[in-house]
Every structure is written in structure tokens, then in C-alpha cells.
């Protein structure tokens, strides 16, 4: 584990139980303790159903624990209202999804602009920053393209540009190369690494891909809702 004095986010005895008490009760996370510091680069591996995505949802403030605490920069998340959690997602967290999740009715530029607009940036500044981010991911020429006009690799690069738009302290990627071939996967990983280095953000990547995991400096393995290994570097 990295030496973290001021964690970006910390999980303390977190449980996430779906349908508690019912016959179909699922313990997606079952007593997870985790601390992620600024600049950490973590990979999370584990079989399907081990709780990786649930962990990401809790780290990204998309979900709340059934038990335990999620502490965001020193403040327990349960103290935040939904509005404050939304603001934190907007200003502090970047999401990269396996299926890119770009808005299909917006162009590449507009997709990148979206978080900037939500932050209330004026139009010209927003467009300037969005263009710079698209240039950073090598898509300056495709700003007017709609998602259906882009390749998978291009879509994921737009998604990365969108995730970086508001300068997040925590970048969460769920199988970011899951739908890409190896060459495009490498490009995406290069971008993630470059973004992590330049911004100092903590990066958490959920993956099944060993090539992805080798990029990380810290590796978690999950099984049955628990972190079974947490090791620094390979």
C-alpha cells in the first residue's frame, strides 16, 4: 500500500447488501477497508460477482453503503446530501465506463463539454477547454462527430477526455479496455497513465486484463465481496 497521509477516499468496514433479509440477499461487499491516497494507481481484479463494480460505485459516490463508512477527503459521505454528492462527482471524480457511455445525441465536443457546463463554465471557455482535452486524447479532428461515427477506441478516448474535464482527484475506470483491441487498449492505458501523471489524480481501474493491471502500482484482488489481496507493485 502507498504511504498515504491524507487519503482521497477511505472505506471503513463497508458492506453493501442488496435485498437484506430476503431469500435473494446479496452481499456485494462484505466488510471492505480501503484507503486511496492522492496519486495512487490501483488495479482491481477478481471474478465476476466479486464486488469490483460495487466498490467502484461506492468510491464514485454513485451508491451508499448498507453498513460502514465511506470517507471522502476526511468527511463521511453519509453527511453529504444527494446534491453535495452530485457536486463532488462533478468536481472531484471522473468516470470511465466499459461501454463508454457517451450521450448519443451529442457530438464528441459536446460530450466533453457536458461536465464543464454542469459546473457552470461560460460557453467560450468551456469549448476552449473541451477542444484542448480532445486534442490531448488525439481527437481534435473529430470534435463534430457523433458517437456512432467514432470507433470504439475513439469513443473511449472521448470518454477519457470527458472524465478529465473537471480535473478530478479520483479517476474511476470500469473495464476501460474491455471492448477494445490490444493496440487501442494500449493507447487508452497510455492516456490514463499520462493523465494520472499530469494531474496527480488517484486512479482506480477495474479490469480482467493482466496488461492493464501491470500498469498499476497497487493491485487489489477481490472475491465474494472482500479484498483478498492488496499489494504494492509487481
Amino acid at each position, binding site marked *: 500500500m502507498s504511504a498515504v497521509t491524507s487519503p482521497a477516499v477511505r472505506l471503513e468496514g463497508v458492506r453493501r447488501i442488496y435485498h437484506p433479509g430476503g431469500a435473494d440477499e446479496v452481499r456485494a461487499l462484505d466488510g471492505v477497508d480501503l484507503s486511496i491516497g492522492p496519486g495512487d494507481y490501483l488495479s482491481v481484479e477478481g471474478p465476476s460477482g466479486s464486488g469490483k463494480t460495487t466498490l467502484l460505485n461506492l468510491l464514485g459516490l454513485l451508491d451508499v453503503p448498507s453498513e460502514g463508512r465511506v470517507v471522502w477527503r476526511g468527511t463521511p459521505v453519509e453527511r453529504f446530501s444527494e446534491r453535495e454528492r452530485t457536486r463532488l462527482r462533478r468536481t472531484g471524480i471522473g468516470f470511465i465506463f466499459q461501454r463508454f457511455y457517451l450521450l448519443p*445525441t451529442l457530438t464528441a465536443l459536446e460530450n466533453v463539454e457536458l461536465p464543464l457546463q454542469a459546473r457552470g463554465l461560460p460557453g467560450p471557455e468551456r469549448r476552449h477547454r473541451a477542444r484542448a482535452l480532445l486534442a490531448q486524447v488525439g481527437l481534435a479532428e473529430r470534435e463534430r462527430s457523433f458517437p456512432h461515427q467514432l470507433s470504439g477506441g475513439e469513443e473511449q478516448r472521448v470518454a477519457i477526455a470527458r472524465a478529465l474535464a473537471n480535473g478530478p482527484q479520483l479517476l474511476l475506470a470500469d473495464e476501460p479496455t474491455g471492448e477494445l483491441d490490444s493496440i487501442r487498449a494500449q493507447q487508452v492505458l497510455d492516456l490514463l497513465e499520462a493523465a494520472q501523471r499530469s494531474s496527480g489524480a488517484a486512479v482506480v481501474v477495474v479490469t480482467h486484463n493482466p496488461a492493464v493491471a501491470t500498469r498499476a502500482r497497487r493491485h487489489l484482488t477481490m472475491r465474494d465481496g472482500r479484498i483478498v489481496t492488496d499489494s504494492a507493485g509487481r
Partner: protein
Amino acid sequence: MNAIRWSLRWRSLKHRSAQTFLAVAAIGAAVALPVVLLSVGGGVYAHELSSIEQAGFSLSVGSTGAHGLSGVHVLANRIDGLGGVAAASPILSIAVDLSTPGGTVVPVLAEGIIPAAFAATQGAAERALLPSSISLGDPSDTAHYSNGSYTGPSSAQVLLSTPLLQTLNVGSGGHVRLSPSSNATAGVQFTVEGAFGLPPGFLGPSPLFVALLPLSQLQSLVGLAHLPSGGLLDSADSIQVAMVPSQAADPVAVQRVAAAIQVLVPYYSVVSLTEQTAELQSAQAVITGFYVGLSSVGLIVGLLFLVIILLRRVEQERQSIGIRRAIGVPAWLVAQGIVAEALALTFAGLLVGLTAGVATVEFLARYGSGGVADIAGLATFDPVTLGLLGAGLVGLALVASVLPIRRALTLSLPEVLR
């Protein structure tokens, strides 16, 4: 709202063009109905109100009894003698049969009048339809009436409505026979003195075949001059009372004359046009309430349709909504998007509905049959009414957005992003 949000909404509408079309069509249909009802209803009301306001008389004396008013020649003279009164015109309306020398028999509405008084109590519009002078013999109808004797010279002259004259193919100077029954031989021969036009009738079938003749002549013809016992009846349906021009617009003067007439005839009703206007307004309020109720049903159906469409869109766009919520788009912006979409559909529906409503009224006015065309031709598109309709619709659109917004904001993000 800035460009991205507009483009997002516009592309969403375009993307789901079938739903957009259906929603706009439903709202349009819901809007067209009140546009037609309120514009035609308002037009008819305005026309009737205008007719009352432009009438040449200010008061009407009437009775609900089967025999109507009696002793009307004397009564009209006494009313005429009241201060502020310009003319008092008794009118008797009754159906009779009219036969031509060629053997044609048609039922007509005969109106017995005192020519001079009748002309003085007509408004400008009606006067324009009458000949410059109503040539029916004795203008004051006193020679024949002669204090109830109904003797002396008989004018036996009649004016016929233009449609009647055209149907009978009888010219001025020709002769027709009027009879209280289909037995023409029991009737009286009249000389046709000329024709007069008819005002349009909008609230029911308007009699096209009308004959104007001296009151005393009609009374004698139909047996309303004397009672069966031989006593004087001298009957009419009503007496219209015109005020002198300087007092006609003064409600106090009108009420003063009405009170004076009421003293003369405490058993008859004396109604001012102001009261008639109030009655018309009350009736109009009831009818408008009915129209609004009927229209509300259409608007509520349109509203429900809008709710269903918006809910369906939220369902279809749940992933997009989830993505936006995940990257930190505030709830109010998501809500604003749904409201914007509801308003866009509503405004489009409003535009379609207004256009369809106006087009329907125009179509009916041009191609409707008979009275339908006449009524549609009266329609008035009051900007205030249409504005209120639009405002009400916008309010309904906002109400329609509530449930879809609630649905959108309670989506489980982990679930929609799975």
C-alpha cells in the same frame, strides 16, 4: 438555456420523431377543440350582444300569458306620452297561410305592426333592411282600429320578405291572400307594397317567409281584435319602447321610464335591454363553463398523453440520464431538460391546435351547411382567451412534467449504468 441543452432537446425530439408527432398531434387535437368552441361561442355571444346594444329600443313590455298583451293601441299611446319616450311599438307575431292567385299556399310568419312606431324602434341595421318608408297605408294604424271598432278604411297592404317574394314570384302591386287557416277563401286579399330584407338568424332556424302588415289588420284576420264575447281584446305579443336619443344611453332615465310603465301595467313585465344583456351574459357564462368543461376533458386527455410520452422518454433515456447524473449534472438541470421537452411539445401542439382550430372554423364558415356556416362566420378569435388557453396549457405541461421528473431523479445510478 444554452446551446448544448437546446441541441440535446431538439435532437431528442428528432430522434423519437414518431413519439414527438403523436404527442404534438394529441395536444393539437386537445387545443383545437376549445379554440373552435370558444371562438364560435364567443362570436355568437358578441353578435347577440351587439344586436341588443344596437337595437333601436330600450325597453320591452311583455306578458307570459297565452293572450299576450291586450288593449295595446291605447297602451302604446299612453306609453308614448310618458316623458323621455320617443315611440312605443306593439308587435303581434303569428303564423298564417299565404296564397297566391296561382294557387300556391305557403305558411308565413305575419308580423302586425304600427308602421311609424315600428320604424322608430328599429336599430340602424334593421332599418337598413326596411324600405325607406313603410308603405302600409295609415302610418299610425288608427283609422282601421278606431278605438276598437275595427271599421273604416282598411289598408289591406303587406310587405313581404325578399325570399318570400322571390319564391312566390309576385311583384309589387300584386295580390296575395292571407288566411288564419289553410282555407284561402276565409282570408283577406292584400296588395303587395314591396319587400324587406331579413337579419341573419344564428341561434336557430330563421323564418325566411315573413310578412309585415298593419297591426289592426292582423288582429282582425286572426281573431285577436275582439274576444269571442265581443269585448275588445286588441292583442299583441310585446311593445317595444324607444327612448328619446338624449336619454337612451342613460340607465337612470331608462329605469325611470320602466318604472312609469310598470305603474301603468303592473301585471306585465317591463324588461330593459340592460337586463337582457345581463341575462345574455349569465347564459353566456353558463355556456362558456360548459365549453371549458368539455375542453378540459380534451386537455386532460392530452395531458395524460404527454405524461405517458414523457415517462416513456425517461424510460428510454434512463441510461443518458444516469450518465449525466453520474458525471455530476445537477438534478435541476435534468429536471429542466424534461420541462423543456414538455414545453417544446406543448408549444408545438399549441401551434398545431391553434392552426387546426382556426382552419376548422374557416372551413365551416366557407363550406358548412346553412346555419353552421352562418354561426362559424361569426367566430371571433379573442387574443385574451387564446392567451389564457396557452397559459393554461403551459401550466398543464408543467404539471405533466412532475411525474417524469420524479421518475428521472429516482433512477438508481448503479442499476442504469450496469
